[in-house]
């Protein structure tokens, strides 16, 4: 009885689903003919290839067996949230504020970091971003909300 490797099985399903999404999704666009292809043609057939590859990977999951990887929830959530904060804050309060908040949220992903380190690091990161990108490299980014 072959065991199923969950990593490979999920991989196969993911590739299969992606292919199916484009295969069926592209049917809403004009297909055209091979000599005069419409916008739907290429994504449709690439989707078909992707579905085929997904099936191959799914089949191979019957043979490989490796330990499942560790999930790191805390860094994952903190890092993604910090990027979201940057996107949200930069157009509203400028680079220095956005960098400060982004750094602070990302540090929450590190279990060993205390409040002192959080404060010192995020303030320094914000200052470095300001000096390096706005003052020295003169990138066209608003530094504070009054520069917007």
């Amino acid at each position, binding site marked *: 009885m072959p065991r199923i490797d969950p990593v490979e099985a999920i991989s196969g399903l993911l590739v299969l689903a992606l292919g199916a999404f484009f295969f069926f999704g592209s049917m809403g666009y004009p297909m055209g003919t091979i*000599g005069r292809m419409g916008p739907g043609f290429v994504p449709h057939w690439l989707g078909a290839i992707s579905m085929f590859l997904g099936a191959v990977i799914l089949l191979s999951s019957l043979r490989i067996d490796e330990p499942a990887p560790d999930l790191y929830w805390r860094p994952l959530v903190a890092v993604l949230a910090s990027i979201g904060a940057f996107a949200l804050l930069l157009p509203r309060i400028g680079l220095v504020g956005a*960098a400060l908040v982004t750094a602070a949220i990302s540090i929450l992903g590190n279990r060993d970091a205390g409040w002192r380190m959080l404060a010192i690091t995020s303030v320094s990161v914000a200052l470095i971003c300001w000096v390096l990108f706005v003052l020295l490299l003169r990138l066209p980014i608003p530094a504070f909300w009054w520069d917007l």
Partner: protein
Amino acid sequence: MDVWANIATGFDVAFSAQNLMYCFLGVFLGTFFGALPGIGSLAAVSMLLPITFYLDPTTALVMLGGVYYGAEYGGSTSSILLNLPGTPSNAVTCLDGYPMTQQGRSGVALFATTIASFFGGTFGILMLYSLAPLIVQWALEFGPAEYFAIMVFGLVAAATVTQDAPAKGLAMVVAGMLLGTIGADLNTGIARFTFGYFELHEGISFIALAMGLFGVSEVILSIGQKIDKPFIQAVTFRSMIPRRDEVRRSGMPMLRGAGLGAFFGALPGTGPSIATFIGYAIEKRLSKHPEEFGKGAIEGIMSPESANNAAVQSAFIPTMTLGIPGSATMAVMMGALLIHGIQPGPQLMERNPDIFWGLAASFWIGNVMLLVLNIPLIGVWVRLLKIPYGILYPAVLCFICIGVYTVRTSAFDVVLVLAFGFAGYVLRLLRFELAPLLIGFILGPMVEENFKRAMLIYRGDFTEMLTRPISGTLLAMTALLLVWTTWVILRDSRRNRRKEHLTGGADD
């Protein structure tokens, strides 16, 4: 045209005070960002791209080129000292570079990789000098069929050559091409898969895609794996002197690495990372002491580092001669040329010889600068890396966000970084290789466009493509590669099953 006259013109351009200054600025900033773990040449080039908008095109490219190969030089520093690859193509250098640090020999490793980088870089530039004019002569005859075939071959090679799981590599290439179809269709202007987001009309920003997939997922994994290693080794000039047998053992690996790097760098699709992996595998197979690999064998850092830098230089060959970017970073550089109204391709060398030859000359000057600078500056980069990762990564994340934001002044692109960061993390957990996805994304739209054009010319008759000599040969090679890969998969699975049968499938 006389080659020597061209080379002389090139050095004239490169030695202007302005170009020298920006070349220096480029290599310095490149090494700085490259040495930071999690920021590769791509992030560094994208971050610095906006500063070059106001420069003249040659100077802009001189500087961005400097950032590119400077970052590849600098990337080996954190591989060796911290076991964290500074850029994806320096990952192999960790295997033997970090053990050397553990043995207290980081000075030798840093010195050796600087020499290997310089050697590889110089070799790549010589290839650029000698091959680019030849390829341009061919390229003028290239039609859409040839462009299509060369890119498909490169993509299939990228997915299959070094992968443990070729089906997953191919799946990533196709996934990248699928993501590449998002946006307005070139012929009809119909918006495909934009879900009503106006920002997606021009397609997904590939800088956002690349930074999310590579940079952000790397940061998440690194925090999770707790890599706050205390690092206290001092690197003095004395400690950089290699043993005599190491000098003797370095020559051939460096040369083989440079050759491999120049080849894979010039082939669009494959790039520095693949060259470094193959270089390492070949040295291990050829070595009389394969058991020393992974424990600090000097061959294990010489070949990959030489290959890496040769590939970086030869990646300019397809970009300049065909207008096909060989790697993600090259795609940003090509974008920089387009912003200045210069169309890379076969006509570039005729219309703007000063740009091509000036760049080639400045690359070599930049490599000399890196050699001269890096040996005294190693101490500075070492001190930079003494900062614990827990303090470094918030800055890295901010740099990534700033880099993505500035390219299109778009907060929407930063949100895409978030989405692709998550996707990249999941894909890494599922043991997918991410590089084929990115290169599929970059070449995908060009493959689609040339395929459509070719089929229009040949009235939908695919066999026309197979009978043209260049496209036919390339497509036959692609088919061979796929057949060979399938054979390897079948062979391995049969072997696995037999082993499972013998051991009861207990391990491995």
